[in-house]
């Protein structure tokens, strides 16, 4: 920062006047001065905020399929201001899947499903493709644009699957672009669990749209177990039918940058929809989750809970939770919560629970966000029972995150995730 001395009749009128460290003549530079310059952080009424576009109501956020309407972000946009754009360049360029149609495609897809499930593909104009998912940012438009044949997995009406549908998405090579669009449809009164498992390395741009039929009971579990050099941008949109039940669980442990938008809206009334998330960021990782609950119809229930742990000098997490209760959505019951546990110096967690309510006729709405270290009382209680401090800490972290793992309800997955967490904790010898 330059220190321009400017005196008029012996009085400073330049930057020397400033008494708050980090300020310049143009106000606060605190945020920009300390972190990488890719995101400028708007304060309240301070200078940098001026350039933030569309920071207004979620209801006015643009969606659509026309790439021209989603220019390259510059980092000052509300929806990009927390994201490392340089590292995301590989998924924001207008680029088809590398080596498309050859054996060297950078991402491999394997689907394992019970017999009742029908697997096919959909072109852009074939419903239900593009009826549920409305791209909300550049990455999502690109994923759809560059996916000619979307993988279409259909669970027939009334089918109750006793086994989950597994979709293994494996990146072959870091830095190579892969685009994907997956359509999941659960028929009326069906019951199904979809598990999307991301592994390996790639620049992966993946959309998932989920149509939940009336009375259906659907779980979508998305596991991000990428290698350390993978980049992943994705949008998961669901439309939840009448009296249906929908649960989305995102677990993000791997990847250099993961930026997931998970959203749902309702087709009718009487539905119950939930989103859960767990993330564990180490040094060098940027894990970003954005959730949007759109209460567009009356008498539905929603619940969002995301929990994260951070350890390591440059570990970084972002959670943005938008809930919009539209005018029509009378009788809504909604809650969202984000909790972060910061384990070491230098890690940074951003948490923004936004709540917009356009009708007063609601059952209830609330949100909460907390970020902190261990609760000293937890530690004391456990230590007073003879458990040494390091183990007590591990217990608390595991317990903190377990709440989400318990929501998965697929025992073998829960176990393997427990193991992963154990390893994450061990890496740092906690």
């Amino acid at each position: 920062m330059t220190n321009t001395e400017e005196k008029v009749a012996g009085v400073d009128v330049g930057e020397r006047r400033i008494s708050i460290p980090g300020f310049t003549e143009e106000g606060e530079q605190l945020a920009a001065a300390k972190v990488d310059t890719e995101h400028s952080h708007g304060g309240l009424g301070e200078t940098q905020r001026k350039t933030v576009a569309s920071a207004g109501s979620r209801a006015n956020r643009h969606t659509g399929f026309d790439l021209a309407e989603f220019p390259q972000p510059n980092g000052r946009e509300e929806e990009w201001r927390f994201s490392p754009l340089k590292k995301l360049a590989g998924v924001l360029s207008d680029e088809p899947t590398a080596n498309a149609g050859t054996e060297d495609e950078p991402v491999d897809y394997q689907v394992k499903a019970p017999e009742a499930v029908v697997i096919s593909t959909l072109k852009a104009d074939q419903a239900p493709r593009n009826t549920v998912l409305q791209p909300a940012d550049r990455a999502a438009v690109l994923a759809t644009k560059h996916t000619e044949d979307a993988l279409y997995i259909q669970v027939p009406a009334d089918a109750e699957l006793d086994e989950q549908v597994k979709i293994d998405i494996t990146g072959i090579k870091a830095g190579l672009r892969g685009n994907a669009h997956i359509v999941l449809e659960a028929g009326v009164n069906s019951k199904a669990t979809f598990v999307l498992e991301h592994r390996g390395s790639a620049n992966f741009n993946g959309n998932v749209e989920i149509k939940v039929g009336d009375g259906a009971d659907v779980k979508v579990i998305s596991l991000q177990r990428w290698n350390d050099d993978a980049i992943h941008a994705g949008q998961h949109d669901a439309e939840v039918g009448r009296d249906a039940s929908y649960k989305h669980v995102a677990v993000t442990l791997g990847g250099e940058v993961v930026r997931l938008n998970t959203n749902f809206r309702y087709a009718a009334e009487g539905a119950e929809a939930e989103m859960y998330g767990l993330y564990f960021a180490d040094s060098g990782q940027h894990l970003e989750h954005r959730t949007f609950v759109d209460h567009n119809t009356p008498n539905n229930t929603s619940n969002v809970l995301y929990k994260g742990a951070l350890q390591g000098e440059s570990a970084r997490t972002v959670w943005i939770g938008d809930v919009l209760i539209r005018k029509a959505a009378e009788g809504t019951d909604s809650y969202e919560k984000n909790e972060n546990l910061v384990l070491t110096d230098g890690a940074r967690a951003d948490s923004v629970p936004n709540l917009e309510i356009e009708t007063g006729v609601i059952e209830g709405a609330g949100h909460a966000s907390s970020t902190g270290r261990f609760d000293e009382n937890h530690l004391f209680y456990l230590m007073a029972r003879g458990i040494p401090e390091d183990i007590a800490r591990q217990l608390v972290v595991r317990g903190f995150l377990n709440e989400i793992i318990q929501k998965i309800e697929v025992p073998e997955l829960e176990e393997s995730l427990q193991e992963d967490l154990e390893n994450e904790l061990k890496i740092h010898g906690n």
Partner: protein
Amino acid sequence: MSTLEIKDLHVSIETDQGTKEILKGVSLTISSGEKHAIMGPNGSGKSTLASTIAGHPRYEVTSGSITLDGEDVLEMEPDERAQAGLFLAMQYPVEVPGVTMTNFLRTAKTAIDGEAPKLRTWTKEVKDAMEKLRIDADFANRNVNEGFSGGEKKRVEILQLELFKPKIAVLDETDSGLDIDALRVVSEGVNRAHEENNMGTLLITHYTRILNYIKPDYVHVFVDGKVAEQGGPELADELEANGYDRFLAAVSAA
């Protein structure tokens, strides 16, 4: 045979208004097989004594000593105290989200004994102890204290008391918030631990009600951070009849 010896203990806490002395010279000796009751009005420092014995970081010992069989307890971390054989049944047991009772009990037992309990006998032991305390079997899968009622939390504290088999236990207002059935069940648990493990007990209470179930050998009246009077069970009867007025008057006169 074990002995917990507290000598001239002074304890302070940091408050917004500065340092405040809560315990002003407490001396007590509790040996295996003995039951001591500490009674006193609210704010007299009873719970501070309990938390200090267990090593809560909020309380600072400014002078005096606590030893267990000659070992300096004040030098120990809270977990080391538990491993040495001290147990505090807390007045407000803490909820630990996401940690199941099963996991917690096994981890603590392993830490206290220095080796993992044998799986089959341990499971049975936990199950039996839960039955005796009339704790539902599904509590084992719930998170520690999370969503438990006040009475349920207290029973779970006593469950740990029975399973961990401490040498000396401090029960901090374990009777508060219990209905009469729960009080009986909890008292039976404490009495069992006495008989089976020859435990020494320091029972902190505001009311004499629990003393009908757990008969104390010694009663100490706590007023203003000090033991104001000591005696046998008959002292409890007198308090039942006359309350704490006699002691409080003495303090305000002083």
